[in-house]
């Protein structure tokens, strides 16, 4: 009696046993669910696109205003206020984070209070408070110089302080998390080669903390960009305010809002690319991770190796 051979005629033929499976074809698992869910979302997206294409939107108006000089001016103001308030947020954030982690209980408590205050009040409210500060302090003095608050607290100044200080409270927590993520052994090794506390912070701790801080910091940057639209309420001439001015006069409301949306998305895209390269720079020495396994719909689709 033969026991080898696949699906032999004999009803007594046993299935191949250990060591006899070489050369048998292997059938990969089919992911039918993936095909179904892909089809569903593609249809839904197509419907959405169709709806917008047929809706009453004058796309030519959108195209015309996309590069209008007033819009570009608003865009420039948006970018400027974002960069300036993020710069302020990072400087203050690092300072507050270091204070929050210091051994001195007084600075620690003050830093805690700072974060509690500026993280707890809505940004819109903070912008309004800064803008109306002249009601509290009519004049402001720096030593022998004195000025009327209303001249100092321009819309730009109020937006800068409102956005920057609010974001600095978040940045402080990010920086603290980043610093805490650095292994204590790193600091000891740096001490063992006689680095001073300042050198240890600058050369050893911060560069490693950056790797942890950067992804959420990129997020914050994008949040700040979008939150800068709130500065429209204190008459800072950023993009949203510019757009509003235009549609008050020509009533092309949706078209102009779409123009603004397109520009916000464009700037966010540029920021994401910059973030990618900065993250790579600070990821030095950490690349030795294995590549993520490529995924595909059905494994055979891209000729991925079968296993």
């Amino acid at each position: 009696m033969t026991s080898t051979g696949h699906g032999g005629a004999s009803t007594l033929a046993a299935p191949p046993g250990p060591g006899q499976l070489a050369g048998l074809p292997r059938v990969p698992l089919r992911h039918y669910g993936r095909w179904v869910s892909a089809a569903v979302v593609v249809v839904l997206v197509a419907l959405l696109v169709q709806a917008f294409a047929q809706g009453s939107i004058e796309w030519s108006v959108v195209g015309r205003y996309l590069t209008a000089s007033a819009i570009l001016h608003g865009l420039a103001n948006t970018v400027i206020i974002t960069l300036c308030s993020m710069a302020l947020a990072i400087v203050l954030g690092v300072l507050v984070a270091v204070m929050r982690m210091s051994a001195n209980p007084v600075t620690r408590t003050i830093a805690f209070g700072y974060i509690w205050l500026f993280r707890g009040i809505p940004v819109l409210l903070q912008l309004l408070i800064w803008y109306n500060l002249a009601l509290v302090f009519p004049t402001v003095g720096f030593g022998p110089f004195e000025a009327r608050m209303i001249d100092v607290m321009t819309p730009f100044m109020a937006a800068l302080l409102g956005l920057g200080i609010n974001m600095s409270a978040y940045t402080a927590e990010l920086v603290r998390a980043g610093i805490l993520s650095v292994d204590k052994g790193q600091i000891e090794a740096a001490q063992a080669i006689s680095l001073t506390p300042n050198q240890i912070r600058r050369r050893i701790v911060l560069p490693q903390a950056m790797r942890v801080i950067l992804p959420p910091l990129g997020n914050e940057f994008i949040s700040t960009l979008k939150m800068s639209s709130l500065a429209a309420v204190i008459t800072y001439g950023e993009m949203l305010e510019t757009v509003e001015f235009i549609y008050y006069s020509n009533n092309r409301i949706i078209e102009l809002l779409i123009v603004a949306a397109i520009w916000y998305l464009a700037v966010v895209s540029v920021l994401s690319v910059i973030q990618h390269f900065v993250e790579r720079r600070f990821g030095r020495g950490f690349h030795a991770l294995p590549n993520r396994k490529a995924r595909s719909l059905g494994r055979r689709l891209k000729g991925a190796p079968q296993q």
Partner: protein
Amino acid sequence: MSQPPPTDGTTPVVRTVDLQKSFGPVHVLRGVSLQVRAGEVLCVMGPSGSGKSTFLRCINQLERLDGGELWLRDDLVGYRLRGGRLHELTEREIARQRRGIGMVFQRFNLFPHMTALGNVVEGPMRALGHNRAVAEAAARRLLDRVGLSDKYDAYPAQLSGGQQQRVAIARALAMEPYLMLFDEPTSALDPELVGEVLDVMKSLAADGMTMIVVTHEVGFAREVGDTLVFMDEGVVVESGPPGIVLGAPQHPRTQEFLSRVLG
């Protein structure tokens, strides 16, 4: 500054008198007194929790002492004697006192964002103020010496444990230390990588480096050590030439520990 009384004509490199250290309620060092002479290799053994690592870390002031004295050559460590009082030193002054001491850690603690060469030149450039060319030339010589002439530009994550530990030794040597501290340098290594690190340490000892080595490597202690100290519960239980302490331990706790280690 007053000098500790010399014992045999030469000043010991390390001299501790009744060292005390507690972490909260845990009394880790309960009076450790010993000395290390120039060129001596002192091996420290003992069960975990016996205080041997803490003792080593106190010598490098990674831990502040709670009591007792620590002298490195002619200098009182951690304090300045002035007007009959001991004044605590600042972090900067402590960094200066650490200059002559190299330390190698159980978990290497290489800087992951710097290459092997970058790790080795960091101390000489920042702490000693050497310029880059001088520091890099010296660093290459040291990496050659520990057998890593092809790994100058490798990041720690690209190196094996044994290679990382050898970079760490080169990094410590770059500070031109008169004393090297090793805190269980082979305990985190795969067994087949232990030998390459021990070989580097043996060649250092042969060159006359003064070393304190906390280790479980009985063979290394026997072959390279001049003195073996057995610690338990924060005190030195027994010390002497390794051959004698290992071969004929006097104290019951040493006997018990060695019978477990030597199996």
